[in-house]
Protein backbone atom coordinates (compact mmCIF):
# COMPACT_ATOMS: atom_id res chain seq x y z
CA UNK A 1 0.00 0.00 0.00
CA UNK A 2 2.75 2.44 -0.78
CA UNK A 3 1.26 4.09 -3.87
CA UNK A 4 0.83 7.81 -3.43
CA UNK A 5 -2.90 8.00 -3.86
CA UNK A 6 -6.30 7.85 -2.26
CA UNK A 7 -7.72 4.41 -2.24
CA UNK A 8 -11.19 3.33 -1.15
CA UNK A 9 -11.48 -0.40 -0.51
CA UNK A 10 -15.04 -1.70 -0.23
CA UNK A 11 -16.09 1.27 1.84
CA UNK A 12 -19.56 1.47 3.34
CA UNK A 13 -20.84 4.26 5.55
CA UNK A 14 -24.16 4.67 7.31
CA UNK A 15 -25.54 7.65 9.15
CA UNK A 16 -27.28 6.52 12.26
CA UNK A 17 -30.53 8.32 12.77
CA UNK A 18 -32.00 7.01 15.98
CA UNK A 19 -33.92 3.97 15.03
CA UNK A 20 -33.01 4.15 11.39
CA UNK A 21 -29.89 3.74 9.36
CA UNK A 22 -29.33 5.66 6.17
CA UNK A 23 -26.75 4.14 3.88
CA UNK A 24 -24.67 6.91 2.36
CA UNK A 25 -21.91 4.80 0.81
CA UNK A 26 -22.34 1.21 -0.25
CA UNK A 27 -19.28 -0.90 -0.99
CA UNK A 28 -17.34 1.85 -2.73
CA UNK A 29 -13.97 0.99 -4.24
CA UNK A 30 -11.97 3.67 -6.00
CA UNK A 31 -8.33 4.55 -6.70
CA UNK A 32 -7.21 8.10 -7.29
CA UNK A 33 -3.58 8.22 -8.42
CA UNK A 34 -1.31 11.10 -7.50
CA UNK A 35 -1.61 14.12 -9.74
CA UNK A 36 -5.00 13.29 -11.16
CA UNK A 37 -7.92 15.68 -11.60
CA UNK A 38 -11.07 13.71 -10.81
CA UNK A 39 -14.64 14.97 -10.76
CA UNK A 40 -17.27 13.20 -8.71
CA UNK A 41 -20.75 13.80 -10.08
CA UNK A 42 -24.12 12.64 -8.82
CA UNK A 43 -27.56 13.84 -7.76
CA UNK A 44 -28.27 15.53 -4.42
CA UNK A 45 -28.04 12.89 -1.73
CA UNK A 46 -26.07 10.39 -3.83
CA UNK A 47 -23.19 10.26 -1.33
CA UNK A 48 -20.76 12.75 -2.89
CA UNK A 49 -20.13 14.77 0.26
CA UNK A 50 -19.83 11.62 2.38
CA UNK A 51 -17.20 10.38 -0.05
CA UNK A 52 -15.36 13.71 0.20
CA UNK A 53 -15.33 13.58 3.99
CA UNK A 54 -13.67 10.16 3.88
CA UNK A 55 -10.71 11.59 1.95
CA UNK A 56 -9.28 13.38 4.98
CA UNK A 57 -10.54 11.26 7.82
CA UNK A 58 -13.41 13.49 8.99
CA UNK A 59 -15.45 10.36 8.47
CA UNK A 60 -13.96 6.90 8.62
CA UNK A 61 -15.56 3.84 7.03
CA UNK A 62 -18.04 1.72 8.95
CA UNK A 63 -16.94 -1.11 6.70
CA UNK A 64 -13.86 -1.30 4.50
CA UNK A 65 -10.80 0.95 4.47
CA UNK A 66 -9.59 4.23 3.06
CA UNK A 67 -5.87 4.69 2.44
CA UNK A 68 -4.30 8.08 1.89
CA UNK A 69 -0.72 8.00 0.69
CA UNK A 70 -0.60 4.40 1.86
CA UNK A 71 -1.87 5.09 5.38
CA UNK A 72 -5.12 3.78 6.77
CA UNK A 73 -7.39 6.67 7.83
CA UNK A 74 -9.06 4.55 10.49
CA UNK A 75 -5.90 4.64 12.60
CA UNK A 76 -6.04 7.43 15.13
CA UNK A 77 -2.44 8.53 14.65
CA UNK A 78 -2.97 8.79 10.87
CA UNK A 79 -6.26 10.62 11.21
CA UNK A 80 -4.71 13.36 13.31
CA UNK A 81 -2.07 14.20 10.70
CA UNK A 82 -4.26 13.86 7.67
CA UNK A 83 -5.44 17.45 7.52
CA UNK A 84 -1.94 18.54 6.54
CA UNK A 85 -1.95 16.27 3.54
CA UNK A 86 -5.51 16.47 2.31
CA UNK A 87 -7.18 19.86 2.13
CA UNK A 88 -10.96 19.59 2.23
CA UNK A 89 -12.98 22.55 1.05
CA UNK A 90 -16.47 21.92 2.38
CA UNK A 91 -19.78 23.15 0.98
CA UNK A 92 -20.13 26.92 1.44
CA UNK A 93 -16.66 27.19 3.06
CA UNK A 94 -17.15 30.93 3.53
CA UNK A 95 -19.29 30.03 6.54
CA UNK A 96 -16.07 29.01 8.26
CA UNK A 97 -14.37 32.39 7.95
CA UNK A 98 -13.93 33.85 11.41
CA UNK A 99 -10.89 36.09 11.78
CA UNK A 100 -10.92 39.87 11.78
CA UNK A 101 -8.83 40.21 8.63
CA UNK A 102 -8.40 38.22 5.45
CA UNK A 103 -4.70 37.76 6.22
CA UNK A 104 -5.31 36.31 9.69
CA UNK A 105 -7.97 33.99 8.38
CA UNK A 106 -5.72 32.48 5.73
CA UNK A 107 -2.83 32.46 8.23
CA UNK A 108 -4.75 30.40 10.78
CA UNK A 109 -3.61 27.07 9.34
CA UNK A 110 0.07 27.90 8.80
CA UNK A 111 0.29 29.38 12.31
CA UNK A 112 -1.14 26.16 13.70
CA UNK A 113 1.58 24.31 11.85
CA UNK A 114 4.02 26.48 13.84
CA UNK A 115 5.45 28.19 10.77
CA UNK A 116 7.42 31.32 11.52
CA UNK A 117 5.64 34.62 10.90
CA UNK A 118 7.79 35.12 7.78
CA UNK A 119 6.95 31.70 6.39
CA UNK A 120 3.32 32.26 7.27
CA UNK A 121 3.32 35.52 5.37
CA UNK A 122 4.80 33.80 2.34
CA UNK A 123 2.27 30.97 2.55
CA UNK A 124 -0.65 33.41 2.84
CA UNK A 125 0.52 35.56 -0.07
CA UNK A 126 1.06 32.51 -2.22
CA UNK A 127 -2.31 30.97 -1.32
CA UNK A 128 -4.21 34.19 -2.01
CA UNK A 129 -2.30 34.57 -5.27
CA UNK A 130 -3.41 31.08 -6.34
CA UNK A 131 -7.03 32.05 -5.99
CA UNK A 132 -6.47 35.32 -7.81
CA UNK A 133 -6.46 37.68 -4.82
CA UNK A 134 -3.78 40.12 -3.76
CA UNK A 135 -2.69 39.97 -0.13
CA UNK A 136 -1.54 43.60 -0.19
CA UNK A 137 -4.87 44.72 -1.50
CA UNK A 138 -7.27 42.84 0.72
CA UNK A 139 -5.11 41.32 3.49
CA UNK A 140 -6.06 43.93 6.04
CA UNK A 141 -9.79 44.11 5.48
CA UNK A 142 -12.48 42.01 7.12
CA UNK A 143 -13.41 38.88 5.19
CA UNK A 144 -17.05 39.63 5.98
CA UNK A 145 -17.04 42.78 3.89
CA UNK A 146 -16.16 40.78 0.76
CA UNK A 147 -18.61 39.54 -1.84
CA UNK A 148 -19.74 35.91 -1.84
CA UNK A 149 -17.29 34.93 -4.57
CA UNK A 150 -14.35 36.61 -2.85
CA UNK A 151 -15.22 35.03 0.50
CA UNK A 152 -15.29 31.64 -1.19
CA UNK A 153 -11.83 32.21 -2.62
CA UNK A 154 -10.42 33.41 0.71
CA UNK A 155 -11.78 30.25 2.35
CA UNK A 156 -10.13 28.10 -0.30
CA UNK A 157 -6.88 30.03 0.16
CA UNK A 158 -7.04 29.12 3.85
CA UNK A 159 -6.85 25.47 2.86
CA UNK A 160 -4.19 26.02 0.18
CA UNK A 161 -1.97 27.82 2.70
CA UNK A 162 -1.38 24.42 4.33
CA UNK A 163 0.16 23.25 1.01
CA UNK A 164 -1.83 20.03 0.88
CA UNK A 165 -0.83 17.45 -1.72
CA UNK A 166 -4.48 16.58 -2.31
CA UNK A 167 -7.29 19.10 -2.60
CA UNK A 168 -10.88 17.91 -2.24
CA UNK A 169 -13.57 20.49 -3.03
CA UNK A 170 -17.25 19.94 -2.31
CA UNK A 171 -19.35 22.02 -4.72
CA UNK A 172 -16.86 24.89 -4.77
CA UNK A 173 -18.63 26.60 -7.66
CA UNK A 174 -22.16 26.64 -6.23
CA UNK A 175 -23.43 30.18 -5.85
CA UNK A 176 -20.65 31.82 -7.83
CA UNK A 177 -21.46 34.02 -10.79
CA UNK A 178 -20.43 32.81 -14.26
CA UNK A 179 -17.18 34.76 -14.40
CA UNK A 180 -16.37 33.66 -10.84
CA UNK A 181 -17.02 30.03 -11.78
CA UNK A 182 -14.85 30.28 -14.82
CA UNK A 183 -12.07 31.97 -12.89
CA UNK A 184 -12.06 29.48 -10.02
CA UNK A 185 -12.22 26.54 -12.38
CA UNK A 186 -9.28 27.98 -14.34
CA UNK A 187 -7.33 28.52 -11.14
CA UNK A 188 -7.93 24.94 -10.01
CA UNK A 189 -6.77 23.69 -13.36
CA UNK A 190 -3.62 25.80 -13.16
CA UNK A 191 -2.93 24.72 -9.59
CA UNK A 192 -3.24 21.14 -10.68
CA UNK A 193 -0.95 21.64 -13.66
CA UNK A 194 1.72 23.82 -12.05
CA UNK A 195 1.82 22.41 -8.54
CA UNK A 196 0.95 18.83 -9.40
CA UNK A 197 -1.78 18.82 -6.74
CA UNK A 198 -4.25 15.97 -6.90
CA UNK A 199 -7.72 17.48 -7.21
CA UNK A 200 -11.03 15.83 -6.37
CA UNK A 201 -13.90 18.05 -7.49
CA UNK A 202 -17.41 17.29 -6.26
CA UNK A 203 -20.05 18.77 -8.55
CA UNK A 204 -23.34 18.06 -10.23
CA UNK A 205 -22.57 20.30 -13.13
CA UNK A 206 -21.51 18.11 -16.04
CA UNK A 207 -20.30 21.09 -18.03
CA UNK A 208 -17.80 21.94 -15.30
CA UNK A 209 -16.74 18.33 -14.92
CA UNK A 210 -16.28 18.02 -18.67
CA UNK A 211 -14.16 21.16 -18.84
CA UNK A 212 -11.44 20.12 -16.38
CA UNK A 213 -11.29 16.46 -15.43
CA UNK A 214 -9.05 13.56 -16.41
CA UNK A 215 -11.62 11.14 -15.06
CA UNK A 216 -15.19 11.23 -13.85
CA UNK A 217 -16.78 9.23 -11.07
CA UNK A 218 -20.57 8.95 -11.27
CA UNK A 219 -22.30 8.32 -7.92
CA UNK A 220 -25.85 7.11 -7.60
CA UNK A 221 -27.61 6.23 -4.35
CA UNK A 222 -24.37 5.61 -2.46
CA UNK A 223 -22.75 3.49 -5.13
CA UNK A 224 -20.26 4.20 -7.85
CA UNK A 225 -22.18 3.83 -11.06
CA UNK A 226 -19.36 4.47 -13.49
CA UNK A 227 -15.72 5.59 -13.49
CA UNK A 228 -13.60 6.62 -16.42
CA UNK A 229 -12.72 9.31 -18.88
CA UNK A 230 -15.48 11.61 -20.08
CA UNK A 231 -16.51 9.83 -23.25
CA UNK A 232 -16.71 6.48 -21.48
CA UNK A 233 -18.78 7.77 -18.59
CA UNK A 234 -21.41 9.79 -20.38
CA UNK A 235 -23.58 6.76 -20.81
CA UNK A 236 -26.90 7.26 -22.41
CA UNK A 237 -28.53 10.59 -21.71
CA UNK A 238 -31.53 8.73 -20.37
CA UNK A 239 -29.52 6.85 -17.75
CA UNK A 240 -28.03 10.11 -16.53
CA UNK A 241 -31.44 11.75 -16.38
CA UNK A 242 -32.76 8.89 -14.30
CA UNK A 243 -29.96 9.65 -11.84
CA UNK A 244 -31.00 13.33 -11.76
CA UNK A 245 -28.11 14.53 -13.90
CA UNK A 246 -27.85 16.13 -17.28
CA UNK A 247 -25.35 15.84 -20.13
CA UNK A 248 -23.23 18.90 -20.89
CA UNK A 249 -25.05 21.38 -23.13
CA UNK A 250 -22.80 20.68 -26.12
CA UNK A 251 -23.48 16.95 -25.91
CA UNK A 252 -27.24 17.50 -25.69
CA UNK A 253 -27.12 19.78 -28.71
CA UNK A 254 -25.14 17.33 -30.81
CA UNK A 255 -27.44 14.47 -29.85
CA UNK A 256 -30.46 16.57 -30.81
CA UNK A 257 -28.88 17.21 -34.20
CA UNK A 258 -28.04 13.53 -34.62
CA UNK A 259 -31.69 12.79 -33.85
CA UNK A 260 -32.64 15.06 -36.75
CA UNK A 261 -30.52 12.95 -39.06
CA UNK A 262 -27.30 14.98 -39.14
CA UNK A 263 -24.04 13.08 -39.04
CA UNK A 264 -22.16 14.46 -36.06
CA UNK A 265 -19.60 12.98 -33.68
CA UNK A 266 -19.91 13.24 -29.92
CA UNK A 267 -18.48 16.29 -28.16
CA UNK A 268 -18.64 17.79 -24.70
CA UNK A 269 -17.51 21.38 -25.08
CA UNK A 270 -19.05 24.27 -26.99
CA UNK A 271 -15.96 24.62 -29.19
CA UNK A 272 -16.11 20.99 -30.14
CA UNK A 273 -19.83 21.21 -30.94
CA UNK A 274 -19.29 24.37 -32.99
CA UNK A 275 -16.67 22.54 -35.07
CA UNK A 276 -19.11 19.75 -35.78
CA UNK A 277 -21.83 22.17 -36.82
CA UNK A 278 -19.48 24.18 -39.03
CA UNK A 279 -18.30 20.98 -40.68
CA UNK A 280 -21.87 20.23 -41.80
CA UNK A 281 -22.32 23.86 -42.83
CA UNK A 282 -19.22 23.76 -45.05
CA UNK A 283 -20.22 20.44 -46.55
CA UNK A 284 -23.50 22.06 -47.58
CA UNK A 285 -21.52 24.75 -49.36
CA UNK A 286 -21.73 27.42 -46.65
CA UNK A 287 -18.82 29.77 -46.14
CA UNK A 288 -17.20 30.13 -42.79
CA UNK A 289 -13.90 31.43 -41.52
Amino acid sequence: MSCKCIEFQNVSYMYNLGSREVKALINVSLKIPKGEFVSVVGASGSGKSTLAKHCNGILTPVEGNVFVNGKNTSQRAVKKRLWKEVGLVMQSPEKQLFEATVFDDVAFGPRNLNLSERETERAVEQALHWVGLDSKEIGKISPFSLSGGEKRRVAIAGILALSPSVLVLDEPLAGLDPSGRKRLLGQLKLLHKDQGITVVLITHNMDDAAAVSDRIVVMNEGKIQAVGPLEKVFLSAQELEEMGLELPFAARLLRCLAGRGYRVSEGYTLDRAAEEILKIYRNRGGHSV
Partner: protein
Amino acid sequence: MKYSTPLADNVKEKPLISLRELDYTYGQHGGARRTALKGISADIFPGDFIAVIGPNGSGKSTLARHLNALLVPSGGKVWVGEMDTTVPENVWKIRSLVGMVFQNPDNQVIAAMVEEDVAFGPENLGVEPSEVRRRVFDVLAKTGLKDMAKRPPHALSGGQKQLLAFAGVLAMQPKCIVLDEPTSMLDPRNRKNIMDLLVKVNREQGVTIVLVTHFMEEAFAANRVWVMDNGKLGQQGSVEEVFSNWKYLEDIGLELPAARRMVKLLSDKGLNLPQREHIFFPEDLVEELCHVL
Protein backbone atom coordinates in the same frame (compact mmCIF):
# COMPACT_ATOMS: atom_id res chain seq x y z
CA MET B 1 -36.79 22.66 -20.32
CA LYS B 2 -39.20 25.22 -21.68
CA TYR B 3 -41.44 27.52 -19.69
CA SER B 4 -45.00 28.53 -20.33
CA THR B 5 -45.69 32.18 -21.08
CA PRO B 6 -45.85 34.43 -18.02
CA LEU B 7 -49.15 35.99 -16.98
CA ALA B 8 -50.69 38.68 -19.13
CA ASP B 9 -50.04 42.39 -18.71
CA ASN B 10 -50.74 43.32 -15.12
CA VAL B 11 -49.33 46.83 -15.03
CA LYS B 12 -52.76 48.40 -14.57
CA GLU B 13 -52.91 47.00 -11.06
CA LYS B 14 -51.28 48.61 -8.08
CA PRO B 15 -47.73 47.43 -7.45
CA LEU B 16 -47.28 44.85 -4.69
CA ILE B 17 -43.81 46.16 -3.89
CA SER B 18 -42.38 49.55 -4.80
CA LEU B 19 -38.79 50.62 -4.46
CA ARG B 20 -38.10 54.36 -4.60
CA GLU B 21 -34.55 55.75 -4.71
CA LEU B 22 -33.43 52.92 -2.47
CA ASP B 23 -29.93 53.27 -1.02
CA TYR B 24 -28.29 50.90 1.40
CA THR B 25 -24.94 51.15 3.14
CA TYR B 26 -23.47 48.41 5.32
CA GLY B 27 -21.68 49.43 8.49
CA GLN B 28 -23.87 52.37 9.48
CA HIS B 29 -23.64 51.25 13.09
CA GLY B 30 -19.88 50.88 13.13
CA GLY B 31 -17.53 48.73 11.08
CA ALA B 32 -16.39 49.29 7.52
CA ARG B 33 -18.91 51.29 5.51
CA ARG B 34 -19.72 49.93 2.12
CA THR B 35 -22.46 51.12 -0.18
CA ALA B 36 -24.35 48.10 -1.48
CA LEU B 37 -27.35 49.70 -3.19
CA LYS B 38 -27.58 53.00 -4.99
CA GLY B 39 -30.75 54.78 -6.12
CA ILE B 40 -32.90 51.81 -7.04
CA SER B 41 -36.43 52.56 -8.22
CA ALA B 42 -38.66 49.78 -9.53
CA ASP B 43 -42.08 48.19 -9.10
CA ILE B 44 -43.15 44.60 -8.64
CA PHE B 45 -46.76 43.93 -9.67
CA PRO B 46 -48.98 41.09 -8.46
CA GLY B 47 -48.29 37.99 -10.55
CA ASP B 48 -44.89 39.17 -11.76
CA PHE B 49 -42.06 36.71 -12.12
CA ILE B 50 -38.90 38.72 -11.80
CA ALA B 51 -35.44 37.30 -12.28
CA VAL B 52 -32.63 39.24 -10.65
CA ILE B 53 -29.24 38.56 -12.20
CA GLY B 54 -25.85 40.15 -11.65
CA PRO B 55 -22.30 39.23 -10.65
CA ASN B 56 -21.31 38.32 -7.07
CA GLY B 57 -21.16 41.45 -4.97
CA SER B 58 -23.49 43.47 -7.20
CA GLY B 59 -26.12 43.79 -4.44
CA LYS B 60 -28.63 41.09 -5.40
CA SER B 61 -28.93 39.57 -1.93
CA THR B 62 -29.01 42.97 -0.26
CA LEU B 63 -31.84 43.98 -2.58
CA ALA B 64 -33.72 40.74 -1.87
CA ARG B 65 -33.54 41.36 1.86
CA HIS B 66 -35.24 44.71 1.44
CA LEU B 67 -38.32 43.10 -0.02
CA ASN B 68 -39.52 41.72 3.31
CA ALA B 69 -37.98 44.20 5.70
CA LEU B 70 -35.03 42.09 6.79
CA LEU B 71 -33.06 45.16 5.83
CA VAL B 72 -34.50 48.66 5.73
CA PRO B 73 -33.24 51.41 3.43
CA SER B 74 -30.47 53.79 4.44
CA GLY B 75 -32.08 56.20 2.00
CA GLY B 76 -35.27 56.13 -0.08
CA LYS B 77 -38.25 53.89 0.58
CA VAL B 78 -39.53 50.38 0.09
CA TRP B 79 -43.30 49.91 0.11
CA VAL B 80 -44.86 46.47 0.43
CA GLY B 81 -48.62 46.50 -0.18
CA GLU B 82 -48.52 50.24 0.61
CA MET B 83 -46.75 49.60 3.91
CA ASP B 84 -43.49 51.39 4.62
CA THR B 85 -40.84 48.79 5.59
CA THR B 86 -39.13 51.20 7.99
CA VAL B 87 -42.19 51.28 10.27
CA PRO B 88 -41.67 48.50 12.88
CA GLU B 89 -45.43 47.89 13.29
CA ASN B 90 -45.65 46.85 9.63
CA VAL B 91 -42.91 44.24 9.71
CA TRP B 92 -45.03 41.29 10.85
CA LYS B 93 -47.67 41.93 8.20
CA ILE B 94 -45.03 42.46 5.51
CA ARG B 95 -43.36 39.14 6.30
CA SER B 96 -46.65 37.27 6.06
CA LEU B 97 -47.09 38.77 2.58
CA VAL B 98 -43.55 38.22 1.37
CA GLY B 99 -41.73 34.94 2.15
CA MET B 100 -38.02 34.51 1.73
CA VAL B 101 -35.89 31.52 0.78
CA PHE B 102 -32.27 32.16 1.63
CA GLN B 103 -29.11 31.27 -0.21
CA ASN B 104 -27.95 29.08 2.60
CA PRO B 105 -30.64 26.72 3.91
CA ASP B 106 -28.84 26.25 7.24
CA ASN B 107 -29.90 29.80 8.03
CA GLN B 108 -33.56 28.95 8.04
CA VAL B 109 -33.97 25.26 8.78
CA ILE B 110 -34.65 25.13 12.51
CA ALA B 111 -36.81 22.25 13.70
CA ALA B 112 -35.71 18.76 14.77
CA MET B 113 -37.69 17.00 12.09
CA VAL B 114 -38.40 17.79 8.45
CA GLU B 115 -42.20 17.92 8.79
CA GLU B 116 -42.01 20.07 11.92
CA ASP B 117 -39.79 22.47 10.07
CA VAL B 118 -42.34 22.86 7.31
CA ALA B 119 -45.14 23.29 9.87
CA PHE B 120 -43.29 26.00 11.78
CA GLY B 121 -44.19 28.85 9.42
CA PRO B 122 -47.92 28.25 9.04
CA GLU B 123 -48.26 27.47 12.77
CA ASN B 124 -46.74 30.83 13.58
CA LEU B 125 -49.23 32.50 11.29
CA GLY B 126 -52.01 30.94 13.36
CA VAL B 127 -53.21 28.55 10.68
CA GLU B 128 -55.64 25.82 11.90
CA PRO B 129 -53.80 22.58 12.85
CA SER B 130 -55.76 20.48 10.35
CA GLU B 131 -54.94 22.95 7.59
CA VAL B 132 -51.27 22.98 8.68
CA ARG B 133 -51.20 19.19 8.33
CA ARG B 134 -52.77 19.39 4.89
CA ARG B 135 -50.25 22.00 3.73
CA VAL B 136 -47.27 20.10 5.14
CA PHE B 137 -48.35 16.95 3.37
CA ASP B 138 -48.95 18.87 0.18
CA VAL B 139 -45.64 20.75 0.00
CA LEU B 140 -43.58 17.74 1.05
CA ALA B 141 -45.12 15.83 -1.82
CA LYS B 142 -44.55 18.71 -4.23
CA THR B 143 -40.90 19.13 -3.26
CA GLY B 144 -40.21 15.39 -3.29
CA LEU B 145 -39.33 15.28 0.42
CA LYS B 146 -42.24 13.06 1.45
CA ASP B 147 -40.04 10.08 2.29
CA MET B 148 -37.89 12.24 4.54
CA ALA B 149 -40.72 13.74 6.61
CA LYS B 150 -39.53 12.13 9.84
CA ARG B 151 -35.82 12.72 9.35
CA PRO B 152 -33.82 15.35 11.21
CA PRO B 153 -32.81 18.12 8.78
CA HIS B 154 -29.10 17.60 9.45
CA ALA B 155 -29.40 14.18 7.87
CA LEU B 156 -30.37 15.76 4.56
CA SER B 157 -27.89 16.62 1.86
CA GLY B 158 -27.17 20.27 1.00
CA GLY B 159 -29.55 20.13 -1.94
CA GLN B 160 -32.32 18.48 0.06
CA LYS B 161 -32.02 21.19 2.70
CA GLN B 162 -32.52 23.79 -0.01
CA LEU B 163 -35.71 22.02 -1.00
CA LEU B 164 -36.80 21.96 2.64
CA ALA B 165 -36.25 25.70 3.06
CA PHE B 166 -38.41 26.26 0.00
CA ALA B 167 -41.10 23.88 1.26
CA GLY B 168 -41.27 25.80 4.55
CA VAL B 169 -41.98 29.08 2.78
CA LEU B 170 -44.40 27.52 0.32
CA ALA B 171 -46.46 26.20 3.23
CA MET B 172 -46.98 29.76 4.47
CA GLN B 173 -48.73 30.61 1.18
CA PRO B 174 -47.38 34.14 0.92
CA LYS B 175 -48.46 36.53 -1.87
CA CYS B 176 -44.87 36.89 -2.96
CA ILE B 177 -41.88 34.57 -2.61
CA VAL B 178 -38.37 35.95 -2.81
CA LEU B 179 -35.73 33.32 -3.51
CA ASP B 180 -32.04 34.03 -3.20
CA GLU B 181 -30.29 31.46 -5.40
CA PRO B 182 -32.48 28.61 -4.24
CA THR B 183 -30.98 26.08 -6.62
CA SER B 184 -27.25 26.70 -6.24
CA MET B 185 -26.65 23.33 -4.58
CA LEU B 186 -29.24 21.31 -6.44
CA ASP B 187 -28.67 18.72 -9.13
CA PRO B 188 -30.33 19.30 -12.50
CA ARG B 189 -33.40 17.23 -11.65
CA ASN B 190 -34.12 19.02 -8.40
CA ARG B 191 -33.34 22.34 -10.01
CA LYS B 192 -35.93 21.57 -12.63
CA ASN B 193 -38.37 20.51 -9.88
CA ILE B 194 -38.03 23.82 -8.09
CA MET B 195 -38.28 25.81 -11.32
CA ASP B 196 -41.37 23.87 -12.40
CA LEU B 197 -42.94 24.52 -9.00
CA LEU B 198 -42.15 28.23 -9.15
CA VAL B 199 -43.61 28.51 -12.63
CA LYS B 200 -46.67 26.59 -11.47
CA VAL B 201 -47.46 28.71 -8.40
CA ASN B 202 -46.80 31.81 -10.47
CA ARG B 203 -48.88 30.94 -13.53
CA GLU B 204 -51.68 29.04 -11.79
CA GLN B 205 -52.02 30.73 -8.41
CA GLY B 206 -50.68 34.13 -9.37
CA VAL B 207 -48.02 34.09 -6.65
CA THR B 208 -45.48 36.82 -7.30
CA ILE B 209 -41.95 35.45 -7.63
CA VAL B 210 -38.65 37.27 -7.28
CA LEU B 211 -35.82 34.91 -8.16
CA VAL B 212 -32.19 35.83 -7.63
CA THR B 213 -30.14 33.50 -9.78
CA HIS B 214 -26.81 32.83 -11.44
CA PHE B 215 -28.32 30.39 -13.89
CA MET B 216 -29.22 32.42 -16.93
CA GLU B 217 -31.51 29.64 -18.13
CA GLU B 218 -33.67 30.15 -15.04
CA ALA B 219 -34.22 33.76 -15.96
CA PHE B 220 -36.14 32.60 -19.04
CA ALA B 221 -39.07 31.72 -16.80
CA ALA B 222 -39.52 35.38 -15.88
CA ASN B 223 -41.60 38.12 -17.46
CA ARG B 224 -39.06 40.70 -16.41
CA VAL B 225 -35.35 40.60 -15.73
CA TRP B 226 -33.47 42.99 -13.47
CA VAL B 227 -29.72 43.25 -13.95
CA MET B 228 -27.82 44.37 -10.87
CA ASP B 229 -24.55 46.08 -11.61
CA ASN B 230 -22.37 47.40 -8.82
CA GLY B 231 -25.25 48.33 -6.51
CA LYS B 232 -27.39 49.85 -9.25
CA LEU B 233 -30.25 48.50 -11.26
CA GLY B 234 -28.24 48.46 -14.46
CA GLN B 235 -31.01 47.26 -16.73
CA GLN B 236 -34.55 46.01 -16.58
CA GLY B 237 -36.73 44.63 -19.30
CA SER B 238 -38.19 41.54 -20.87
CA VAL B 239 -36.06 38.43 -21.26
CA GLU B 240 -35.60 39.23 -24.96
CA GLU B 241 -34.58 42.82 -24.29
CA VAL B 242 -32.08 42.01 -21.59
CA PHE B 243 -30.45 39.04 -23.28
CA SER B 244 -30.12 40.78 -26.63
CA ASN B 245 -27.63 43.12 -25.00
CA TRP B 246 -24.78 40.58 -25.03
CA LYS B 247 -22.00 43.05 -24.76
CA TYR B 248 -23.31 44.67 -21.59
CA LEU B 249 -23.90 41.36 -19.81
CA GLU B 250 -20.43 40.12 -20.65
CA ASP B 251 -18.86 43.41 -19.62
CA ILE B 252 -20.25 43.11 -16.11
CA GLY B 253 -19.03 39.52 -15.75
CA LEU B 254 -22.14 37.54 -16.62
CA GLU B 255 -22.03 34.70 -19.04
CA LEU B 256 -24.57 34.28 -21.77
CA PRO B 257 -26.75 31.19 -21.63
CA ALA B 258 -25.04 28.26 -23.36
CA ALA B 259 -27.36 28.41 -26.39
CA ARG B 260 -26.56 32.10 -26.91
CA ARG B 261 -22.84 31.48 -26.50
CA MET B 262 -23.12 28.86 -29.19
CA VAL B 263 -24.92 31.28 -31.51
CA LYS B 264 -22.13 33.78 -30.97
CA LEU B 265 -19.40 31.20 -31.49
CA LEU B 266 -20.99 30.20 -34.79
CA SER B 267 -21.46 33.78 -35.91
CA ASP B 268 -17.79 34.53 -35.16
CA LYS B 269 -16.98 31.73 -37.59
CA GLY B 270 -19.25 33.07 -40.28
CA LEU B 271 -22.44 31.10 -39.67
CA ASN B 272 -25.18 33.60 -38.87
CA LEU B 273 -28.53 32.43 -37.57
CA PRO B 274 -31.36 34.79 -38.51
CA GLN B 275 -33.76 34.44 -35.54
CA ARG B 276 -31.18 34.58 -32.80
CA GLU B 277 -33.06 36.81 -30.38
CA HIS B 278 -35.48 33.97 -29.75
CA ILE B 279 -32.95 31.26 -29.06
CA PHE B 280 -32.85 30.29 -25.39
CA PHE B 281 -32.91 26.51 -25.15
CA PRO B 282 -31.05 23.75 -27.03
CA GLU B 283 -34.30 22.88 -28.83
CA ASP B 284 -34.59 26.44 -30.18
CA LEU B 285 -31.04 26.26 -31.42
CA VAL B 286 -31.61 22.93 -33.14
CA GLU B 287 -34.72 24.36 -34.87
CA GLU B 288 -32.73 27.31 -36.16
CA LEU B 289 -29.81 25.17 -37.23
CA CYS B 290 -32.10 22.89 -39.19
CA HIS B 291 -33.14 25.90 -41.27
CA VAL B 292 -29.62 26.78 -42.33
CA LEU B 293 -27.88 23.41 -42.43
